């Protein structure tokens, strides 16, 4: 795809999605798209550190959760939600800086499992300390508009995609990709690996923190430990991998595909949806080992030839 | 014994071997010489089934090895001592040796094989319970050769057995190879140590940049300027 087409198509998609709530007045469609957009943001943020800097972070939910926790707390106390989200992003990124220095002593699978442990530590601690359900007051619920959440999600997803697109062609992104490909060779070319890995982690977790803030704004009633659940990490990972890791489009395609399939099957086959979803997932991985981005490229090459 | 005919091999898009032909007759020691990166190890990978040639044919005792999986080639009587020894470092010396006799043709003669290896390398008997990675380089090389011998091969392929060893050790290793050959095992020896290799072998091939650059009797090659130049350059004496 040419850059020019990208420049037209991206804003056009966003514009189309922006007018959608005015046309389609169904909360289920908005809610579905909200989940897709949230998944795009979360997967894209994971993509920065895993797809670009090559560090498979299995503790991603911790940053999503920290963002949600901070935002919800501040918002409940009367802070405007956007300010709360900003604070959530800062808290998530600061935590990333603190643990990153230790975690980046680990490489490869050890980094992955180490961060998984960190995520679990946070989840259990938050579950222990904050065991009370967090529910918005009835007056807030009365004024709850899903469209507001949808627009915020749309904006955030656009920011996330844009951030990854810009990063991908920037000096920093180039350095991160060099680390992903070969950390030693990157160092030999002057790339300070630790600094860039930390930067990628901070960027990634700040976005995850924002996504968490969005979740806190969206979800009326949940237990504070819920956004710390490893499921959020796994969802991000699966979406990114099945879409295409280290690409701008991968997480977008992956999120659409993953959320759609999951929701559709859950509605269509109440008793067998997990079984079908799992089996389909396995089949897709076996048939399209390169992810959806690659499959789309192959499909396009095929249709062009035909 | 072994025939390599017009073999062509590639890693991805770039060609590592082209039109390589080589023959080993029963009972021979043949040296394969050539500078680093000339494709010697690639050729060995083709012979041992780790890499499928893109074109050409490898025959062992008259049978083409085209579709034979690597592990089954050992069963046919072709064993290899890989470059860098590639021992199973966390296992004991004896476990390494016994793994050498993994294939059915060698299993029944495991005990005799062990005795033979210990007879050839008496030091190993003493260190047989030691973890292989704890051995010195020379002893590790002995284990690697011993492991290949345990397969009871009719053709032994050695990839740079002198690598990183002190000259005295190289000498004794080569002495052992001569003994092994005398017991009826053909040998294909890949070496950088030209002098030693040519002293040991009767014939030699010279591989350069993926092609056969020369072939001949060892005695002739020892005095061949081409060999010398390949290693020491035009200024070589």
């Amino acid at each position, binding site marked *: 795809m040419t850059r020019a087409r990208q420049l037209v198509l991206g804003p056009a998609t966003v514009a189309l999605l922006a007018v959608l709530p005015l046309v389609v007045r169904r909360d289920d469609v908005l809610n579905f798209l909200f989940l897709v957009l949230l998944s795009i943001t979360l997967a894209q943020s994971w993509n920065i550190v895993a797809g670009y800097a090559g560090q498979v972070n299995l503790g991603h939910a911790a940053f999503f959760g920290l963002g949600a926790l901070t935002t919800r707390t501040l918002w409940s106390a009367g802070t405007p939600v956007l300010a709360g989200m900003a604070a959530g992003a800062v808290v998530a990124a600061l935590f990333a800086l603190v643990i990153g220095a230790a975690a980046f002593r680990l490489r490869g699978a050890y980094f992955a499992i180490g961060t998984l442990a960190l995520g679990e530590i946070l989840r259990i601690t938050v579950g222990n300390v904050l065991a009370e359900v967090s529910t918005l007051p009835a007056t807030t619920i009365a004024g709850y508009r899903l469209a507001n959440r949808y627009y915020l999600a749309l904006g955030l997803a656009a920011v996330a995609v844009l951030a990854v697109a810009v990063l991908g062609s920037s000096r920093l992104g180039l350095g991160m*990709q060099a680390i992903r490909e*070969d950390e030693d060779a990157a160092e030999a070319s*002057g790339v300070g690996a630790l600094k860039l890995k930390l930067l990628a982690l901070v960027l990634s977790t700040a976005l995850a923190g924002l996504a968490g803030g969005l979740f806190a704004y969206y979800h009326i009633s949940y237990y504070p430990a819920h956004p710390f659940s490893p499921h959020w990490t796994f969802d991000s990972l699966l979406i990114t991998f099945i879409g295409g890791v280290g690409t701008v489009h991968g997480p977008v395609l992956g999120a659409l595909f993953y959320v759609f399939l999951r929701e559709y099957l859950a509605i269509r086959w109440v008793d067998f949806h997990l079984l079908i979803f799992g089996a389909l997932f396995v089949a897709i991985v076996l048939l399209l080992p390169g992810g959806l981005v690659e499959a789309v490229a192959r499909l396009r090459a095929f249709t062009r030839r035909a | 014994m072994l025939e390599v005919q017009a073999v062509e091999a590639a890693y991805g*898009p770039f060609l590592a071997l082209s039109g390589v032909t080589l023959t080993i007759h029963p009972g021979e020691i043949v040296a394969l010489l050539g*500078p680093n990166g000339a494709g010697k190890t690639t050729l060995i990978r083709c012979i041992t089934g780790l890499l499928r040639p893109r074109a050409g044919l490898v025959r062992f005792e008259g049978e083409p090895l085209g579709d034979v999986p690597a592990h089954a080639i050992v069963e046919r009587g072709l064993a290899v001592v890989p470059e860098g020894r590639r021992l199973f470092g966390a296992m004991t010396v004896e476990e390494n040796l016994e793994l050498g006799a993994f294939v059915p043709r060698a299993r029944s003669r495991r005990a005799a094989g062990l005795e033979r290896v210990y007879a050839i390398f008496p030091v190993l008997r003493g260190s047989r319970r030691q973890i292989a990675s704890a051995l010195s380089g020379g002893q590790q090389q002995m284990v690697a050769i011993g492991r290949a011998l345990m397969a009871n091969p009719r053709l032994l392929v050695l990839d740079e057995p002198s690598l990183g060893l002190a000259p005295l050790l190289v*000498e004794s290793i080569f002495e052992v190879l001569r003994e092994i050959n005398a017991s009826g095992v053909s040998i294909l020896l890949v070496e950088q140590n030209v002098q030693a290799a040519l002293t040991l072998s009767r014939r030699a091939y010279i591989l350069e940049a993926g092609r056969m650059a020369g072939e001949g009797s060892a005695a002739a090659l020892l005095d061949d300027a081409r060999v010398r130049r390949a290693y*020491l350059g035009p200024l070589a004496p």
Partner: protein
Amino acid sequence: MRAVSDVSFAVAEGELVGVMGPNGSGKTTLFNLIAGALRPDAGAIRLRDRNLAGRAPHRVCAEGIARTFQLVRPFAGLSALDNVLVGRLYGRARGARHAAVGEAERLLALVGLEGKAHLLPAHLTLIDRKRLELARALATAPRLLLLDEFMAGLNPAETESAMALIRRIQGEGVTLLMVEHIVWALMDLSRRLIVLSAGEKIADGPPDAVAADPLVIEVYLGGTRGSARRA
């Protein structure tokens, strides 16, 4: 275990020095020490009087020492141009981005990769990958360039063109230290050779003197002592 012990030498600005020695003699270890990939247990590595021993590789690179790898290690997921850009944007040069692209393209042309800027390394031949790695190293604007077996695996024609390339780079004022197995090429290129054996320096001098050194012939051409005498 000691891979390299008590090796001392100096390289003058603009010089091209060859390092040779049999496999396992410590050449690559020496390079890793200079480039910061390994930390020396003792001794100093000075570039223009600044001690670089023990510094991280990317700092060493920023000081002006670049390297290539024995087995080529291009960034497989990045285009040729991006490979070179990494060097340009992070090395000693740290140019502005738009200027960097121009410089990267110039370097790609210099090493003979014009028209291949957008290919992935997997689609390049070995010699081209070596050229690419050289361009990436040059992009960091090195004062000293370490070439680790640059000619390994090349056919004679390719070797000739690689030699021409190295001469061109030397002509640009880069100081070169190269490990090489293809000795005739090394002897042809350099005015001075250092020979390592078992981690120690056993010879240092002009090529003809080194080639005639009996010690060098023994360890290098190898063989038993008896046959060395015969040679």
